[in-house]
């Protein structure tokens, strides 16, 4: 990539949920990162660490507690006219995790895919609408005979591709894929990921790819962010992150990947991450610091020096 143009800027995003009894869950707690045009940013972390919430807040499904999300310089959460909001929604789309829950069982595939077309008035006539639907079906490798069928007649992989077609119908620039493959069979996972890669090439899409399957994330992502309990702990180029993990949590996460070679697999040891190992002192500022070019780590001033020394 010759020059990197920021498409999304996320600044100190916070999303708290009030669960009653005065308790607050800090699902996302001060996350800052940028997504560049045309890249795939992978977001990994264990279940419940706030990956999906981050995605949903970025797209505006949740109103952020604090912080800002800028899309092409326009704030997603600020008050806007209905027209501006619609325009923004057209440019950002989402692919969902559960292919069984993400399609309305009472609608035909044609109606599901054309929903965005209907909402944004992208087709003037019925024929034009159906033509778009057929095109989209063919783009995702289904055929036009499927248009009048209902979701329950399809397999998981097929449904996921229908979900992708629905997102593509409004010609978005940015797609958030919220664990799009974790509910699928391994053989189908590759099919869907390759489809997503192809679409990215053809349409110049930008992805935020949320997953917990590390090898799949490495395969599709240009850069990877690691989240732990609502915070981004490390962000780097995919290769760099795998070669030089700095944050102990990232190291622990990478040590959990099974290796295909049984000889190595037999001796593979998991490093366990214990948050208390940092021994942070009272009042120490934890910040997201750039240890190497494009490689950010959440650390204290002291750790920063240590990491820096370790790196060079």
């Amino acid at each position, binding site marked *: 990539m010759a020059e990197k143009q920021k498409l999304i800027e996320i600044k100190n995003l916070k999303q708290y949920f009030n669960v009653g009894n005065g308790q607050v869950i800090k699902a996302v707690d001060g996350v800052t990162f940028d997504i560049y045009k045309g890249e795939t940013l992978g977001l990994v972390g264990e279940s419940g660490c706030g990956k999906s919430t981050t995605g949903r807040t970025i797209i505006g499904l949740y109103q952020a507690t604090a912080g800002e999300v800028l899309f092409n310089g326009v704030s997603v959460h600020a008050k806007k006219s209905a027209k501006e909001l619609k325009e923004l929604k057209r440019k950002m789309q989402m692919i969902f995790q559960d292919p069984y829950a*993400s399609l*309305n069982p009472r609608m035909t595939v044609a109606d*599901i895919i054309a*929903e*965005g077309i209907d909402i944004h008035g992208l087709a003037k006539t019925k024929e034009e609408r159906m033509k778009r639907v057929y095109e989209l079906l063919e783009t995702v*490798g289904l055929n036009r005979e499927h248009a009048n069928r209902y979701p329950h*007649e399809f397999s998981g992989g097929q449904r996921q591709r229908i979900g992708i077609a629905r997102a593509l119908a409004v010609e978005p620039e940015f797609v958030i894929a919220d664990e799009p493959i974790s509910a699928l069979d391994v053989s189908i996972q590759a099919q869907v990921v390759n489809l997503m890669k192809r679409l990215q090439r053809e349409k110049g899409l930008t992805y935020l790819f949320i997953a917990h399957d590390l090898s799949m994330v490495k395969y599709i992502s240009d850069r990877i962010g690691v989240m732990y309990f609502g915070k981004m702990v490390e962000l780097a180029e995919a290769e760099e992150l795998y070669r030089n993990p700095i944050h102990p949590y990232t190291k622990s996460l990478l040590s959990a990947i099974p290796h295909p070679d049984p000889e190595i697999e037999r001796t593979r040891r998991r490093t366990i991450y214990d948050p208390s190992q940092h021994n942070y002192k009272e009042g120490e500022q934890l910040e997201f610091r750039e240890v190497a070019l494009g490689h950010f780590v959440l650390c204290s001033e002291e750790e920063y020096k240590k990491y820096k020394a370790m790196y060079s």
Partner: protein
Amino acid sequence: MQQIPKEMFQPASVDLSEAEKISKPSLSYWKDVSIRFRKNKLAMFGLVLLVILVFMAIFGPYMTKYDYATNDLMSTNQPPSAKHWFGTDELGRDVFARTWYGARISLFIGLAAALIDLFIGVLWGGIAGFRGGKTDEVMMRIADILWAVPYLLLVILLMVILGQGLGTMILAMTITGWINMARIVRGQVLQLKNQEYVLAAQTLGASTSRIMFKHLIPNAMGPILVTLTLTIPSAIFTEAFLSYLGLGVPQPLASWGTMASEGVQALQYYPWRLFFPATFICLTIFAFNVVGDGLRDALDPRLRK
């Protein structure tokens, strides 16, 4: 073991487009439901019974030359005969004509009450469930307060203020009747609104009304329909019950409830005067209940084979 020569093997041609084919004929949701409903014999029996009852309510009064309101004091309290098929009452009115005329009123009250319940209940419950938070809290507390008002007292008060009649009766039933529907719809909407397809519609920029009518209500249709079919018999029963207390439709109008109430006074001597209206009340309530039950089973996608 016998060797299979190489020549006998042929490479299979794998056509990738074939892999995406679905050979099962495309069935829409409602076709699927009707197939399952028709398999349920009891529910089908109930449906046939309902069709007959509705048919008789429409055409019954024309099958006999007697009018429901004309007195004939020369032939009072006649037993069923070739002339008066269901006999006559104390004023010599033909019970057959009155029964089917009463069927119209009873069924009308049942349907009207159920439809008004449906309309208010779906809107109220839908908005409360979808908006959530404070709106939900306020709307459902209003419903709770209405629910807590003693029903009979309310009906009697209304009757006194507005006078007896069909309209008052329907009003009295719907003033609290919709709450049940609202609660069911609210529960459904609460459950459905976090489904990913609703989130997908939101990210596409769908308006609230579109989400409501395209996504939430169609998917809550099963419980709504079942509640509806169970509201009708309860409305018919309430009508009969109120008539029995003397709060029913005024004379000479007939409903099954008023007929039964009059019939009970003459039970010892002229039992047919109670028998016919009471039988039809039972049959109607039974029919609606089994149809509702059958619908519940047929609409539940978990039972799909």
